[in-house]
């Protein structure tokens, strides 16, 4: 299995001289199973350079898995050029949104409204299908399986565990570890904490034996207190999580759009230092920042 990063930025595309090393495109990760089946995790602006690459490999049979419907995870979708070419097939998977009562078909419908985009879905000539996923129910894609897990974000967000011939990778999408809504002195604190611990325990159990963890690491631990409830994780929190899970590799992604490459490296180095990270020590995961073009072979 191969994983390639095409977009690593959170919230909004951030091109410019200060983001050249890691890249300014928003989330898009290409995963190729051993039999070369194509899984695309999210369709941020990173999906556009991926699309251009795919035009050299026609016909395209793509399985796009949307973690959630916030702009930075979908706004490249109408520019996924294989959608316009007859003979291609694109299957878009995603969550059922309990607030709107709609599945992933809503994502394109909203984006292709007349005032906002010139092309109608009927004019896209590829075979397009939508699949609303059930939580915890694996979906086969070629020789891989993709299992959606329910995570914590201001809109329903599915993390995807991809398994192929004994190797596995998990991408969180946007995720803030569950937290107690009560203060320790409140009556409901203990009961809520129990539920939070149970939820985290269930996720950890579902990630047993994981090789590569790709996690939303938008903030530093120091920044987090002013961002509680925004639905993102921290570098330090994910380092601890990766150690707890015993994964081989942690890739920190969804970089803050305001962070320059230098600042990103500084924040990362500080997080590693404060976590007493010892690279190469037995049992210690390999930890890295995602960047456009990064490829991981499992």
């Amino acid at each position: 299995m191969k994983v390639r990063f095409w977009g690593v930025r959170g919230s909004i595309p951030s091109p410019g001289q200060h983001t050249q090393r890691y890249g300014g495109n928003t989330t898009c990760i290409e995963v190729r199973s051993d039999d070369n089946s194509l899984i695309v995790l999210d369709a941020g602006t990173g999906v556009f350079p991926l699309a251009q690459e795919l035009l050299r490999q026609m016909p395209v049979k793509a399985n796009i898995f949307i973690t959630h419907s916030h702009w930075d995870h979908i706004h490249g979708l109408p520019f996924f050029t294989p959608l316009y070419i007859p003979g291609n097939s694109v299957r878009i998977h995603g969550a059922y949104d309990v607030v709107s009562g709609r599945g992933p078909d809503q994502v394109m419908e909203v984006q292709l409204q007349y005032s906002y985009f010139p092309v109608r879905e009927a004019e896209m000539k590829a075979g397009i299908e939508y699949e609303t996923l059930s939580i915890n129910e694996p979906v086969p894609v070629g020789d891989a399986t993709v299992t959606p897990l329910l995570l914590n974000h201001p809109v329903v967000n599915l993390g995807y565990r991809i398994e192929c011939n004994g190797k596995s990778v998990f991408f969180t999408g946007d995720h803030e570890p569950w937290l107690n809504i009560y203060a320790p002195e409140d009556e409901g604190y203990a009961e809520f904490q129990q539920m939070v611990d149970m939820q985290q325990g269930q996720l950890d159990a579902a990630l047993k034996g994981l090789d590569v963890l790709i996690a939303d690491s938008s903030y530093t631990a120091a920044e987090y207190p002013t961002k509680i409830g925004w639905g993102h994780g921290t570098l330090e929190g994910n380092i601890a999580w990766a150690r707890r899970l015993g994964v081989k590799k942690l890739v920190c992604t969804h970089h803050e759009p305001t962070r320059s490459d230098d600042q990103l490296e500084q924040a990362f180095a500080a997080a590693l230092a404060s976590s007493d990270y010892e690279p190469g020590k037995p049992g210690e995961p390999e930890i890295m920042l995602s960047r456009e073009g990064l490829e991981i072979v499992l």
Partner: protein
Amino acid sequence: MSALTPELERKLGMAVERMPAFPRSVQKILELTRNINCLPKELVAVIEKDPVMTVKILKVINSAYYSLPSKITSVSQSVVYLGINTIKNLALGFAAVGILPRMNAAGFDIQRYLLHSLVVAGVARQLATQFAKSEADPGDCYIAGLLHDFGKVVFAQFLAEEFRNVLEVSAVEGLPLNAAEERVIGVDHGVVGALLAKRWAFPEHLVNCIRDHHHADAAPSAMMDCLRMADQIVRLREIGDSGNPWRETEAVAAPGRFGDDIMATVNAISGSLDKIVEDAQMFAQVGSEK
């Protein structure tokens, strides 16, 4: 016990989807959500005091979509799964439906019904803590109390004429309300509440408790004991109005657990009772009635 026709059950189920929530919670939700930093626990505190909002949240979380290993009975647990922002937006959606009018064609006062349900919920939770430790979950008992009479609001809203008739028969003939419902409508509010709860995949013990709370011969449970005793205490103290007054001839519920002197149980929880009543009155916007 008779049953509803499937057609009527379906109609009532769909009607509840469009049922507005209680005025106070709608107002509070709109007020709280104007502030982007509103505290999640404050939202939860409002939702869990409103039977309509609670029913709608539990319906979502227990739906097949989430296929959770065990059924959920609490609003705060739903927050863990759905996330507070989704809960907030669902609540805003419920608020946008409008508000339940205080008076309906049945002549059933929903504010005083809310007060009754809130106090029964609080008292049932307290009784579970004091009298059924490790046998019944206090949170489950709260939900059972909050929703035990949900069938009555459904009647009042959607079978108003029949329910008006029920209230009259019960008052004039001194008949327990559930008996009057069975005679006039064919089923009592417990059966209707339970049918809906079952339709929404609520946990079985909650469905049973709602269905059987007026049926003395139903399978006993600690949760049922606490619910029935709470209901009696609240009617005895004339707090709120369930449309069914306490009658001297009524047998005291669950004497095996609470003894046969209801006043002894009232005294045992008296420290918490005043606070429960006061909080409920404030929320239901119904002042002291005695």
